[in-house]
């Protein structure tokens, strides 16, 4: 086939066929199939996330459109509707997450500074691994430890807080002026949650602190700064947005954590700031885990509706964290 063509027009033909062949070899057969496979699995990710949203909404619809849920579901108060339960649940979820964040962030920043600027280099990576070990411990084990080991130990501390700081609304006692015993209260839960989110906040902060430009640090030292002043002037300003986004990632974790809350907290459905009294608050995730298996169709649907609320809240928090990281990338010279 090629030989008659070459015979008829010798100067033109040697050129086009190879070029055409080359353009074909770059994308044909298995090569194309593999590319489609890769693109397809990328799309599968998008489809999965879309179906998470779609199936949750589909399952939640019966509860969202039902006009008399209180008559069908035992845990919705007489004459109330879904909102009367979801409100306190969202409140409890956010309260628990914020208290645990308040406990975890200072310690996490301290550990991150210890590993990045205080500990000897050789020791630092080993210590980082030890902190990462905390992240590998399953949440149900944290729950078991929290309720059987930690709770009896912290009860006197909570009682002390009620006795001497009871005038602060957060530390108010029950009607007898006591902290609950056993302390299955929000404060104990938040303490365990704080331990659980410590590793992620530490890991992200540590990475950011280690990225502090060497020149900034040396400039601070050359001006006679002490180690703390070096950290105040060079490391913390550089790492501030990194720590913020680390805290928000931790917040996202704390919002969605189920088992520790389920095992420790004695649930209640109140808008209550009392951290040391039992049966005041409950979180969305723990509420779902506690009630899901015994629920009928409409009850499950209502629980899935609360799960949808949790999904939206964590989504917003995580997007906030990403936005902060992205903004930091723009002006940081480190990358």
């Amino acid at each position, binding site marked *: 086939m090629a030989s008659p063509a070459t015979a008829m027009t010798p100067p033109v033909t040697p050129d086009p066929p190879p070029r055409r062949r080359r353009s074909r*070899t770059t994308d044909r057969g*298995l*090569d194309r*199939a*593999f*590319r489609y*496979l*890769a*693109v397809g699995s*990328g799309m*599968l*990710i*998008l489809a*999965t996330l879309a179906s*998470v949203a779609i*199936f*949750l909404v*589909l399952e939640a619809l019966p509860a969202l459109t039902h006009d008399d849920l209180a008559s069908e579901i035992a845990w919705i108060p007489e004459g109330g509707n879904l909102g009367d339960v979801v409100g306190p649940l969202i409140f409890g979820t956010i309260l628990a997450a914020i208290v645990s964040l308040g406990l975890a962030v200072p310690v996490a*920043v*301290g*550990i991150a500074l*210890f590993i990045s600027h*205080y500990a000897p280099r050789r020791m630092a990576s080993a*210590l980082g691994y030890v902190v990462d070990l*905390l992240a*590998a*411990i*399953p*949440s*149900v*084990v944290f*729950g*078991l*430890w929290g309720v059987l*080991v*930690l709770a009896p130990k912290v009860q006197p501390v909570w009682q002390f807080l009620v006795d001497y700081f009871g005038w602060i609304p957060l530390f108010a006692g029950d009607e007898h002026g006591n902290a609950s015993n056993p302390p299955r209260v929000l404060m104990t839960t938040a303490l365990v949650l704080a*331990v659980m989110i410590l590793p992620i906040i*530490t890991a992200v902060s540590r990475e950011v602190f280690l990225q502090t430009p060497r020149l900034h640090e040396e400039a601070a030292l050359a001006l*006679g700064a*002490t180690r*703390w002043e070096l950290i105040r002037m060079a490391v913390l300003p550089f790492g501030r947005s990194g720590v913020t986004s680390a805290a928000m*990632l931790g917040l*996202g974790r704390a919002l*969605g*954590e*189920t*088992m520790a809350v*389920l095992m420790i907290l004695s649930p209640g459905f109140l808008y209550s700031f009392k951290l040391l009294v039992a049966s005041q608050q409950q979180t969305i*995730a723990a509420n*779902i*885990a506690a009630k899901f*298996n015994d629920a009928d169709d409409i009850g499950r649907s209502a*629980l*899935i509706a609360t799960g949808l609320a949790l*999904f939206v809240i*964590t*989504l917003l*928090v*995580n997007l906030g964290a*990403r936005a902060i990281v992205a903004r930091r990338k723009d002006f940081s010279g480190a990358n």
Partner: protein
Amino acid sequence: MATLDTAPATPSSALRDVLSQVDPKRRRKDRVMQVLVYGAFVLAMIPLVSLVWSVISKGIGRFDLYFLTHSMRNVYGGMDAGGVYHALLGTILITLLTAVISVPIGIVTAVYLVEYGKGSLARAVTFFVDVMTGIPSIVAGLFAFSLFYLVVGPQSKSGLVGAVALSVLMIPVVIRSTEEMLRLVPNELREASYALGVSKWLTIIRVVLRTAVAGITTGVMIAVSRVIGETAPLLITVGATDSINDDVFHGNMMTLPVYVYRQYAAGLVPCAPGDDACIPTINYDRAWSAALVLILVVMLLNLVARGVSRWFAPKTRA
């Protein structure tokens, strides 16, 4: 030092003191902060040590071959019996199924992002992988439940539903770690392969993935050790049982984390006075031993992951 002799005027000792010593107030602050930073670290070690110690000391009592090889079938009250075999089996089967679903999807998606990804689709995938990382585990469980409930109908609880829920949590972790590893593969290797006339897909499989295989394996094992401890999604998708069920496609299965929770929730056993065969704390004892088994499994996976990356690493550097 030597320049001091030739300098026109030696600084007075007072001046030297000022220059060489930090102002006491600043020094005090420095010390206080140092103590606080060290203190933060010690503070964080307390729960870790306490937790590991509790699990080992309370769990070792029932941790033996009998515990590992028996289920909870026909075990009731304060009987000195019962084990974790059915839960261990369930955890292994469900985790394997999860890995079978998520590892190929995760790796191929990472390949897409690194080798093919351009334009808005790649940006969207990166963004939504981030979003997926933040999905609370209970929401993943609700999703898998809703999916199977609407498609299969009631009585849909099975190991497969749990594996789908765990996959939603595991896929983004696999994608992230694989992506990082693929980006570490030097471009020269790809170009050398293209220069030899090797097609793109073969280059990816034989050169890029082969180079990164140690890192990818490590990432996968760490992802597995993360999902193996998940409790909440399994609680609502797989349920619980006291018997051995080795069929991941039908019926409730027990898993280690759910076993720990159920034993804890069963609480203390009210024993009749004088009944020596009845152990009041039997449920808590079993919960601690199962927690020990769970932690051992997770630690084992982590150690293997570190070993894999250490043994294979020099090859990729060469």
